[in-house]
C-alpha cells in the first residue's frame, strides 16, 4: 500500500531558513540517510523537496480561459515543504517512517519533532484519468 508523507511546516513568504550552515548540513545529511535506507528497503517510491513559499502562486482560470495568478496567501496557510511516497506493508510502517522524518535535526542538532501528515494514495491513478 502506498502512502504519502507530507512535511507541511512552512509559512507564507518564508524563504531560506536562517540556520547556521552546520545545522543545515546535519539536517540534509539526515534526510539523505533516511532516503538511502528507504531506497535499500525497496520502500521509496518518490521524494521531493519544494522551493520556498515566497515563490508559490495560486492559479485560477479566468472567464476567458487565461490563468489568473495570485501570490497572496493567508497567514495561517500551511505550505508543503516536501514529501515522500512510500510503498509499505502496513499503515504502522508508514507512521514509523514519518516519526523518523519528524525527528530530523534542527538548529543545534535538536530534533525538530515536526508533524508529518500521512495519507494513503490511490494505488494507481484512476483508470478513467489516464
Amino acid at each position, binding site marked *: 500500500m502506498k502512502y504519502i508523507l507530507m512535511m507541511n511546516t512552512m509559512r507564507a513568504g518564508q524563504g531560506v531558513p536562517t540556520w547556521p550552515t552546520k545545522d543545515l548540513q546535519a539536517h540534509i545529511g539526515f534526510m539523505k540517510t533516511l532516503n538511502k535506507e528507504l531506497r535499500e528497503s525497496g520502500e521509496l517510491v518518490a521524494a521531493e523537496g519544494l522551493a520556498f513559499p515566497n515563490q508559490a502562486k495560486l*492559479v485560477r482560470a479566468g472567464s476567458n480561459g487565461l490563468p489568473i495568478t495570485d501570490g497572496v496567501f493567508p497567514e495561517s496557510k*500551511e505550505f508543503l515543504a516536501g514529501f515522500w511516497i512510500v510503498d509499505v506493508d502496513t499503515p504502522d510502517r508508514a507512521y514509523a517512517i514519518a516519526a523518523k522524518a519528524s525527528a530530523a535535526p534542527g538548529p543545534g542538532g535538536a530534533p525538530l519533532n515536526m508533524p508529518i501528515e500521512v495519507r494513503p494514495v490511490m494505488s494507481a491513478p484512476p483508470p478513467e484519468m489516464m
Partner: protein
Amino acid sequence: MKYILLMSGTKAGVDGYHTWSQKDIETHMAVLKGINKELTESGEFVATQGLANPRDARLVTGQKNGVPVTDGIFPESKEFLLGYWIVDVATPERAYAIAGRISAAPGPGEVPTNMPIEVRQFATHG
C-alpha cells in the same frame, strides 16, 4: 524546470464532491484525462496522483525514543491535498497555464469549478 500543481480542499469540500451526479463526475474526469493526454504528448507530463479521503489522514510526530505518535484530529479549516500533477515545463507561465486549464475543469452542470491550484517549483532535481 519541474513544477508541482497542488489541488487542495477542506473535508466539507470533499463531501460536496461526493454529491455530484455520475454524469458531472464523468464530464469532469474526461476533461482532466484530456489534459493528461495533451501533457503526455507534449512531453511535459511527469506524474499525477490522487490522494485517498482526508478522513484517513493522520498526523505523526516522533517521540524521543523514535516511537510514532499518531493523531487524526484536524481543524475544520484545514486544507487537505486532494491530488497533484508534476510537470516539466520551459517557463513558469506554462505551469500557470496548465494550472488554469485544470482550474477550468467542469463541475456540476458543466460550470467550471475555478478551483485554485497552488503552483510550486521543485527544489530538487532542477
